[in-house]
């Protein structure tokens, strides 16, 4: 039976090139946006966020970080499809500028090329902290270019990080991390509707029944009666 991993993020396997003192686990809180680190009772599984903190505290610096390429999750996809790899530091403005130009076609391109006026399909993929940004890019594109068919796939991606000790180059650690990753295919051509993860263009009202009563139900959304100036404290989902 597979034992459930109780941390917010999947386990990290560390291979040590040299002898590095094993730091005992603490319930450290990661200050950045990502999830809070939770302690795990199993001795071998280290919460991956607190791993970064401990390596940073030990004087390690991340030397390089490489993603391991896995096969495309979309079967039968033509190879000429534009793939937008969204990273954590990517600017949405730059990503969308490039993708929109490709999808809507270069009207001013030279006539002799005869290439297709704009691409039919585009894939947005991102992993780890870039997942939310990936979804946002896809949503923006769906809004600007209407009636796009969407296919979304989730899976784990393995990322290999190499940490080096900044004092002496002797010790080095390789960290294998599996991070959740998302790939969103947007296509002007219809896709297979029976495929899990398929989303037809603009068919979201089935999920949200109350569309019309939005404005009137705003005050009803606060569970406590509003005071003279203050409404109920914000509850974030």
């Amino acid at each position, binding site marked *: 039976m597979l034992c459930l991993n109780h941390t*917010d993020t999947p386990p990290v396997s560390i291979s040590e090139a040299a002898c590095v003192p094993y730091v005992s686990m603490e319930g450290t809180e990661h200050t950045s946006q990502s999830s809070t680190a939770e302690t795990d009772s199993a001795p071998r599984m280290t919460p991956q966020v607190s791993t970064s903190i401990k390596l940073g505290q030990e004087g390690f610096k991340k030397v390089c970080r490489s993603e391991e390429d896995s096969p495309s999750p979309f079967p039968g996809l033509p190879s000429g499809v534009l793939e937008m790899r969204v990273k954590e530091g990517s600017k949405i403005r730059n990503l969308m500028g490039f993708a929109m130009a490709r999808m809507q076609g270069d009207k001013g391109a030279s006539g002799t090329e005869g290439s297709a006026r704009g691409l039919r399909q585009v894939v947005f993929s991102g992993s780890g902290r870039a997942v*939310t940004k990936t979804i946002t890019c896809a949503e923006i594109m769906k809004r600007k270019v209407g009636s796009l068919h969407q296919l979304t796939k989730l899976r784990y991606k393995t990322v290999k990080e190499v940490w080096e000790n900044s004092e002496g180059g002797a010790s080095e650690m390789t960290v294998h991390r599996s991070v959740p990753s998302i790939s969103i295919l947007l296509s002007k051509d219809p896709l297979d509707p029976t495929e899990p993860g398929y989303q037809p263009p603009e068919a979201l009202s089935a999920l949200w029944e109350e569309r019309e009563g939005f404005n009137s139900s705003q005050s009803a959304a606060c569970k406590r009666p509003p005071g003279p100036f203050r409404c109920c404290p914000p509850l974030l989902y």
Partner: protein
Amino acid sequence: MMMSEPRSPGVPPAVHPDTLSSTVEMDPVEYTLRKRLPRKLPKRRNDVYVNMKTDFRAQLARCQKLLEGGGHREICVHGLGLAINRAINIALQLQASSQGALQLATNTSTVELVDDLEPEDPDETGEPMTRTRNNSAIHIKVFYPDPQ
């Protein structure tokens, strides 16, 4: 326009706007940012909304219980904004612990959020405003596929 950080009601801002130096470009009126709840959510028995406040393990166990004990063939895991990552993690771990019996179907959407801006200045030189912004949401259906 500058947005002040969300504060609990009744706490005055730390710095009075008038004492700021002229080199900083700031609004004369500071606003308190208050986020409104997202629109009222329809909730079936097998809908699970993931948030960043509740313990991850508890949310995972809740989904586990719905699938196994509750007799639901499918559950729907929703996540908004920062909780998207957590929702994806929950769904992927549910799938991993089921030894491949479960399948995932993912949909994404945009949710409109409204912020209430109230002027901090007791003179009320500004008026309460609202600002709308968009946020991404994910809906993951975790289900046992129909036997063929």
